[in-house]
């Protein structure tokens, strides 16, 4: 039995269909992240789970019970909002206890629950303060404390970190992950930040235009994307898309990439990655998807031992990030990004040889943007 199951949920706002037959299921203790660009329907889906927006069609089940038409209060869920939504007239203590008070939990138990979550989130010293007297990070903790106090079946997080500054965001991200590992709670988390999605999730649902494009583990979504949108959305810097021509014969394919002013580059397609779909695309254009880290600098000490084809090009921009260096170089009709080690002696304007790791490359159909291999 799933902790949360969504069956063919549809949601219309007037004549606009915001959710189009969305279905998914997660197990108890799972951390699901809904990710996608603004307007993809992820927040609407979350509000539908919370009961704040009635669905047009479909079913929502929590722990096997159909709760599609129950009020938010009857669903046994708690939510952390983007703006935190702390009650301004109440102290932190009253904020955390409010949900228990509404559920008629006796006062001693309420006090116990407040102490428990305050201890867990290290906000005991803030309990008598009003929300206006707290910093952004502290408000964030109180908002989580309010959700944790009730111990609901499912926690909903609606972009909880997007109002924090960069440093605090990374800290709180780790903290949320720790909390999840420690408490084993079931969490549905909405974000548009793909790094948050990759770092926190047990499973990621990538959404676009009211559809779930792909539902899978972070590894699947990152390394085995279903289409160009998912491939481009996950990962930063994003995946390079290079137009190439599929050549060779069935079972032994090559990709030919024409770069203006350069010799054409021919990359062999790994035999173990051949799919049936490729046969129909022979001598036609395809889109090669290469992540920046699949292009690496030549290591002189490993000369002749490294796998992969060499690519030589003139570097246009060098962007050191500290941990590694991002290079921009022309390939095909546009420019691509390569992520090389911090010691790479690359300089703008100079030619550089890079190894292309084709074992993790992916191929897409340029028309449908779907995956070919």
């Amino acid at each position, binding site marked *: 039995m799933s902790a949360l199951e969504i069956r063919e949920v549809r949601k219309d706002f007037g004549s606009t269909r915001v959710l189009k037959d969305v279905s998914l299921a997660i197990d108890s203790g799972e951390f699901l992240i809904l990710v996608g660009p603004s307007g993809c329907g992820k927040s609407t889906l979350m509000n539908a789970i*919370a*009961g*704040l927006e009635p669905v047009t069609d479909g079913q929502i089940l929590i722990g096997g019970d159909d709760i599609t038409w129950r*009020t*938010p*209060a009857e669903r046994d*869920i*708690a*939510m952390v*909002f*983007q*703006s935190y*939504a702390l*009650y*301004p*007239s*109440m102290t932190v203590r009253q904020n955390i206890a*409010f*949900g228990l008070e*509404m*559920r008629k939990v006796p006062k001693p138990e309420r006090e116990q629950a407040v102490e428990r979550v305050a201890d867990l989130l290290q906000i005991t010293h803030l309990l008598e303060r009003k929300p*206006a007297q707290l910093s952004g990070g502290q408000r964030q903790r109180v908002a989580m404390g*309010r959700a944790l106090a*009730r111990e609901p079946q499912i926690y909903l997080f609606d972009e909880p970190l997007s109002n924090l500054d960069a440093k605090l965001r990374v800290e709180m991200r780790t903290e949320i992950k720790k909390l999840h590992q420690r408490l084993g709670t079931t969490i549905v988390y909405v974000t548009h930040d793909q790094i948050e999605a990759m770092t926190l999730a047990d499973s990621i649902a990538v959404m676009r235009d009211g559809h779930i494009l792909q539902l899978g583990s972070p590894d699947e979504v990152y390394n085995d994307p279903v289409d160009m949108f998912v491939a481009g959305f996950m990962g930063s810097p994003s995946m390079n898309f290079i137009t190439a021509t599929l050549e060779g014969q069935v079972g032994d394919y090559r990709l030919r990439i024409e770069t203006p002013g350069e010799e054409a580059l021919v990359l062999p397609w790994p035999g173990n990655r051949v799919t049936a779909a490729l046969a129909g695309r022979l001598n036609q254009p395809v889109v090669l998807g290469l992540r920046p880290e699949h292009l690496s600098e030549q290591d002189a000490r490993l000369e002749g031992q490294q796998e992969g084809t060499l690519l030589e090009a003139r570097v246009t921009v060098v962007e050191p990030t500290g941990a590694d260096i991002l290079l921009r170089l022309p390939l095909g009709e546009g420019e691509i990004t390569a992520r090389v080690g911090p010691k790479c002696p690359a300089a703008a304007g100079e030619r550089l040889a890079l190894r292309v790791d084709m074992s993790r490359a992916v191929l897409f159909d340029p028309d449908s943007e779907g995956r070919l291999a």
Partner: protein
Amino acid sequence: MDNVIRRRTPGARLARAVLYAVLIVMGLVYLLPLLIMLLTSIKPLDEIGAGTLLALPENPTLAPWITAWGEACTGMRCEGVGGYFWNSFAIVIPAVAISTVVGALNGYALTKWRFRGSELVFALMLFGCFIPFQVVLLPMAQTLGWLGLSSSRAGLVLVHVVFGIAFTTLFFRNFYVAVPSELVSAAKLDGAGFFRIFWRILLPVSAPIIVVSVIWQFTQIWNDFLFGVAFSAHDTQPVTVALNNLVNTSTGVKEYNVNMAAAMIAALPTLVVYVLAGKYFVRGLTAGSVKG
């Protein structure tokens, strides 16, 4: 506030002096009618006839005030305006309270529990702010008759509540539209219902707009003459109507000092309310524009 730093030249000082002089003169001009009323109300009648308007009283007396409160003739009766003063309170207090509470609930429902057509409902209520009172005198008289409230204080309270709701709804709606709706969503998830959310979450942050609503309604209803004269009987008249009757009573000499004293009495409560809560009024009117 003048936050500009500039050198203090003689010319700047002169400009400043002229500025203050003009302001003081204008202030005095605006205060003059009040001053004349006050001076006239404590002069004996013969001094008013003899001296000028601005002359200070030679024998100040409170007798006109006492007469105005308890003895002056308003039409057929000679009981002063005191009784009508309390009449006004008996009308104003429930009318202000009810219209403020209803306006707050309307504003809350129109912003936090939107329903199909809620914007239309608001637009129609807003329309109520622009209806001239004279237009509804006859239908309202008819309605009060049907309800059995003709010439009663309750009837006047009803009329003022009905008219006040348009304004109070506008105030509260514009205030609550700036309160984040996520607060209401959070409270719903916490298990609170319509009234509980209003009482525990919205109302505690509504003090500024409650002050605005109360001052506005108090002033409007206290100063009302038209409804008061149209829908009241002798013993349910508000003080504005009594004041009119007192001033227009045509028997004997015109007792200007008594008239002025009665006018002061009639004006006093709104002045007191404004002086006590005026700064909150301004604060409340601008509350929505600044992020808390």
